[in-house]
């Protein structure tokens, strides 16, 4: 998945799951700016992993709230590049 598509997925998940207005979601938006704490960062990674199959919920996952959406998207793409093709995403609810 190219970074733009990954970013689009993140924006959609933030909008649907966290009920954040898409008008407030930009690549350089940080979690601090969005009013989301470290619990929310973990939640986003869990939800993104469930959606995409990319293994994100592991030891080297980003945790700080000063990171931006673009940072997270980059991290997701790195994870996807470093692993075997993901199993079918979204198998469980």
């Amino acid at each position, binding site marked *: 998945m190219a970074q733009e598509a990954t970013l689009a997925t993140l924006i959609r998940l933030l909008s649907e799951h966290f*009920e954040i207005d898409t008008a407030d979601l930009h690549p350089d938006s940080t979690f601090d700016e969005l009013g989301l704490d470290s619990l929310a960062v973990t*939640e986003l990674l*869990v939800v993104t992993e469930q959606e995409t199959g990319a293994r994100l919920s592991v030891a080297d996952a980003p945790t700080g709230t000063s990171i931006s959406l673009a940072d997270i998207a980059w991290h997701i793409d790195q994870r996807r590049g470093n692993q075997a093709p993901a199993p079918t995403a979204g198998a469980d609810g």
Partner: protein
Amino acid sequence: MTAHETAVTGLGLVTAAGVGVKATWSRLCQGHPTATRDPALHGLPVDFNCRVPETELANALGRGLRWRTDRFIQLALVAAREAVRDARLEPAQWSGERVGVIVGVGGSSYDTMPQVCAHLARATPEIISPTAVPRGIPNMAAGEIAVDLGARGPGMSVSTACASGATALGIAHHLLSAGMCDIALAGGSDSGCHPLTAAGFWRLGALSTRRHDPAGASRPFDTDRDGFVLAEGAAIMVLERAEHARARRVHPYGMLAGFSATTDAHHHTRPHPQGDGALRALRGALSDAGLPPTDIDHINAHASSTPLNDRVEAAALCEVFPEPPPVTATKSVLGHSLGAAGAIEAIISLMSLRHQTIHPTANLDTIEDGIALDIVTKAPRPQRMRAVLSASFGFGGHNAVLVLTAP
């Protein structure tokens, strides 16, 4: 006897009839049951319940909370906000350390448990949501209200199963009396609409299985009743000592004049056959209020619509009240909201006092033989009232009775 009088100065309510006290009072006066088939329960032996309207709840709650809070927390927040506004309190200006939050929560919250269990079963605990614990533990209704409104005094949940909402109000009354806080946001919140809850209570034999007629399923005191109908809701009151309300120049809805909590210590789910615990709680609340039975003008019964409860409760009421005042059963319209029920019914008792009107009990076609009570049916009944008694009886034999009086 209580050292200080407790005034009720604000009310907040969310039920299957809608958001806001007016919506529920209006629906009760219409006598129009809220039970309907629930798609989320499709395929289960009991597939109907009383759900809070989704859009109304979302609009009242606002955005950004549902990802990390179970329904009982969402309902509690909406009710607490309404109560505080209604009491003309301004959280930005109050002394937060003197504001307590006491919320009755009777049922376990299961909203995301099926997904959590699936991840455990697949040995993928790392994709369990980090919200799994904080979104559902019972104290979080009080915790989230405290964050939302800035209440830094004593905060807790109270649990006595179906009596939780009433017990919470009684505990809040005593915390105020003891001077541990000056304002108490108190009541109950619960959502009994999850498939796990429905399956569990069905297996216990507690639920009505009147699938062909959900609206008619909650029929307290009726000869055809066969169990209760699960519901969800939240009711929060603002309580303060009478002199505190006077100093703020707010006119109370009424006084929380008496409270009694007792335990049957008989069986884990069945009430004492002679209603021992219920009798002591009824008499205890009257004594606490300093009122003889003849001074009670109306009884809002627990009346869950189970064969056993309604029969035992009716007998207990007849024993304590030689000539029982008119009775009504709020659960006939709103269903059984578990931990919220006692608080919802306390609010309805106050509305009855304010309007000098008793709402009708729905679905009472044939009162069971042997139940010698005057139950208001068909239409709201105007009634001069100064004191109302509200009773709640829970699994585990936990009983809580409140006496509410006109201001």
